[in-house]
């Protein structure tokens, strides 16, 4: 190993450590914890509000020490934070917290995702009726789907600016649709069947397969009304027609 590589390896070891260090190195250790902790606070503001600043800073510090940053782009930092909170003993009483973090990471990804096009309605109108079941809709790259056994959409919404943190619902599962609208991230709770339908589309299912997964009655109602809204909102942004028998 070169002398430079050895120096740098030791320095990084010292930054990601709690052992005593020289005052100069301590400045860099503080800076790093502040930078990476600040990145987590920027990505997980609702988690921070739920647990308070001091508790969050300590959790972030322990996360940083256990999960070093792997990229020179700070926007990539924090993907494992939800998983960390799941096993963080001091947050055990807040069962919903990891899923709130998952929802916030989905928002973070949504904000930076590619700009997809809009659905080509003229091309869709030209599809023969008998081929409808074989349509494979694709979701916009900025769409994320998050499900939780806890009412995380209600908790998330209650902790946005101007709200006092009191959720509309305090129990029950949530099925959240995360998307981008005019540069802002929107989170909406949707019906479980619609969520499963979108999840199927995201996994590459045809319209027939996705509809089968949510039950005939819901599918009929949804195809008549819900689908149009998903297209209008840009959630569905493209389509292809699968080969017959495929």
């Amino acid at each position: 190993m070169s002398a430079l590589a050895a120096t740098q390896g030791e320095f990084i070891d010292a930054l990601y450590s709690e052992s005593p260090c020289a005052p100069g190195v301590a400045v860099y250790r503080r800076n790093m914890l502040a930078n990476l902790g600040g990145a987590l606070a920027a990505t997980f503001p609702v988690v921070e509000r739920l647990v308070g600043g001091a508790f969050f800073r300590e959790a972030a510090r322990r996360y940083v020490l256990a999960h070093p940053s792997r990229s020179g782009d700070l926007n990539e930092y924090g993907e494992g934070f939800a998983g960390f909170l799941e096993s963080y003993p001091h947050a055990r009483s807040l069962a919903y917290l990891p899923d709130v973090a998952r929802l916030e990471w989905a928002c973070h990804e949504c904000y930076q995702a590619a700009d997809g096009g809009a659905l080509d309605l003229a091309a869709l109108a030209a599809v023969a009726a008998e081929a409808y079941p074989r349509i494979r809709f694709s979701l916009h790259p900025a769409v994320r789907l998050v499900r939780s056994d806890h009412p995380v959409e209600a908790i998330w919404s209650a902790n946005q600016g101007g709200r006092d943190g009191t959720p509309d619902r305090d129990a029950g599962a949530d099925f959240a649709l995360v998307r981008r609208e005019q540069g802002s991230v929107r989170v909406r709770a949707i019906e479980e069947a619609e969520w499963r339908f979108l999840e199927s589309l995201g996994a590459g299912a045809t319209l027939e397969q996705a509809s089968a997964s949510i039950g005939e009655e819901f599918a009929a109602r949804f195809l008549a009304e819900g689908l149009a809204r998903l297209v209008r909102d840009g959630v569905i942004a493209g389509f292809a027609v699968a080969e017959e028998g495929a």
Partner: protein
Amino acid sequence: MASLQSPAPAAGIGLRAPHYAEVLARRPALALLEVHSENFFAAGGPALAWLESFRGLYPLSFHGVGLSLGSSEAPDAAHLAKLASLVERFEPALVSEHVCWSSASGRHSNDLLPLPYTEEALDNFVAHVDAVQERLGRPILVENVSSYMRFAHSTIPEGQFVAEVARRSGCGVLLDVNNIWVNSVNHGFDPGEFLAAIDPATVREIHLAGFEAQDSLLIDTHSREVTGDVWSLYRDAIGRMGPRPTLIEWDADIPALDVLLAEARKADAILDAARAAERAA
């Protein structure tokens, strides 16, 4: 296309999100808008849409903080690919990075860490600048950083190290006058000697910012107005090398845009005075 022109030797500002809308609405006279490259590494979304709205209105400068040119390992290919595609898309007037390192064996500090100033570190740094310039198909600028410790085995004064990087790689120098001042206080050297080591012809841009004192160290926080000592050193630098595009950086406790613009106007006044002195001479 305006973004392809070299910026005029006048003042610009580091453009941060809280000021996007106001800069676009007011269009203040500025020679340069500088952004952190990594803030636009997203595949899409609003940040890139904002950047599109500024191109053509101002010369742009992409200032990287995460490439870690001084690491013993080669620059991260994925990071460099994102930078290359951003540079290709926006054709900025300037592309810059730092004379520092950030990562080792896959772990990143996301901070600008000081190098040991040795022949080995110099060879390594020059090789990485060469590789980046080759990949981008254009010269970059490299900036001297603030530091809070020094390696006892350094053998080259920092100013000479920066000058030598530019001489050997053909890159330009982004001279951060605040960082020279901060280091001269932290490490007890004469900032004039640092300036004297730099070949004026290689300096393409100057940075100014504010620092804070913590314990016995000055910390380059970019959270304050430029101090009198730094303005004075800036006058010396401009006197030595002539007017250069000069950028005001402010990244923490970001003030009203007018505070930033007032700092830019101070730099402009010094640049104007230097031009008048040149004409009189």
